[in-house]
C-alpha cells in the first residue's frame, strides 16, 4: 500500500512550498542584517573614518551588482532551457563572487593597517562584523552555485526543473540586497 499522496507533492505545490519556505528564511535573515546595520549608529554614530577606502567600496559594490545581473541571466537561462546561457552566467557569477571575497580580504588588510579600524576599536568592530557576516553569506552562495553548476550543467532544466538554480540565485540576490544597505552604512554616511 502506498502512503497518502497529498496535493503538496505535485510539482506546482512543491515549487510553491519551496519558494514560500525560502522567502520566510530570507526575511528572517534580513532581520539579522537590519540589527547589525543599526548597531553601527549606536556604536560609532554617523561618522566614517578617513582611512576607509572609498574607491574600494565603490568597486566592490559595482562588482556585486554586476554579479547579480549574471545570476539573473543564469536563472533566465535555466527557466527557458538555454543551457549555454545558464552555465556561462553561473560561472561568471562564481568568478565575480570570488573576486568580491578577495576584495573584502584586501579591505581587511587595509583596516588592519590603521589603528582606528582595528577589530578592537568601535568602528573596526562594526566593519569586521558586518563585512564578515556578509562575506560568509557570499561564500555560502558561492558553494551553492558551485553545487548547482555541477548538478545542473547536464541535467534537465527548463520550466519546472529550475528550482535549484532559482533558489541559489534568490540567495545571491539577498546577498546583493544586504550589500546595497551595507555600502552606504559603512562607507558613505558621514554626518
Amino acid at each position, binding site marked *: 500500500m502506498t502512503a497518502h*499522496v497529498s496535493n503538496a507533492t505535485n510539482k506546482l505545490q512543491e515549487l*510553491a512550498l519551496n519558494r514560500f519556505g525560502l*522567502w520566510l528564511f530570507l526575511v528572517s535573515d534580513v532581520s539579522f542584517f537590519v540589527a547589525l546595520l543599526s548597531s553601527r549608529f549606536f556604536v560609532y554614530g*554617523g561618522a566614517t573614518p578617513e582611512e576607509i577606502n572609498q574607491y574600494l567600496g565603490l568597486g566592490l559594490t559595482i562588482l556585486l*551588482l554586476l554579479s547579480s*545581473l549574471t545570476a539573473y541571466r543564469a536563472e*533566465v537561462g535555466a527557466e*527557458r532551457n538555454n543551457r549555454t546561457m545558464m552555465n556561462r552566467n553561473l560561472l561568471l557569477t562564481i568568478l565575480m563572487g570570488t573576486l568580491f571575497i578577495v576584495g573584502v580580504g584586501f579591505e581587511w588588510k587595509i583596516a588592519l593597517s590603521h589603528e582606528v579600524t582595528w577589530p578592537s576599536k568601535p568602528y573596526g568592530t562594526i566593519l569586521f562584523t558586518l563585512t564578515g557576516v556578509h562575506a560568509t553569506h557570499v561564500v555560502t552562495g558561492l558553494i551553492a552555485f558551485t553545487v548547482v553548476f555541477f548538478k545542473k550543467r547536464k541535467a534537465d532544466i527548463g520550466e519546472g526543473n529550475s528550482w535549484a538554480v532559482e533558489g541559489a540565485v534568490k540567495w545571491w540576490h539577498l546577498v546583493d540586497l544586504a550589500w546595497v*544597505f551595507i555600502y552606504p552604512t559603512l562607507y558613505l554616511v558621514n554626518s
Partner: protein
Amino acid sequence: MSTQSIGQLLRVGWVVIIALFILTIIEFVAAIGLSGILQLAVLSILAVIKGTLIVQYFMHVGQIRKSITDLWWGILVPSEVEE
C-alpha cells in the same frame, strides 16, 4: 517571469542593472557633496530604491502571492489516497 519572452527578460535585467549603477554613482556623489541629516536622508532613500529594484525585478517578489495561493489550494482541496 514565465509570460515574458527571453529577450524581454534579458532587457529587464539590463535596464535594472543600469538603473542600479546610476543610483550607485548618485549615492557616491551625494556622499561627497552633502552632509548631516540631508546626506543620511538621501542615502537612505537611494538605498531603499535600489533594494526595491532588486526585490521586485531580480527576486520576483510577486511570486509570493502565487505561491501562497497555490499553497492554500493544496490545503483546501482534499488529498488523494493511492493504494
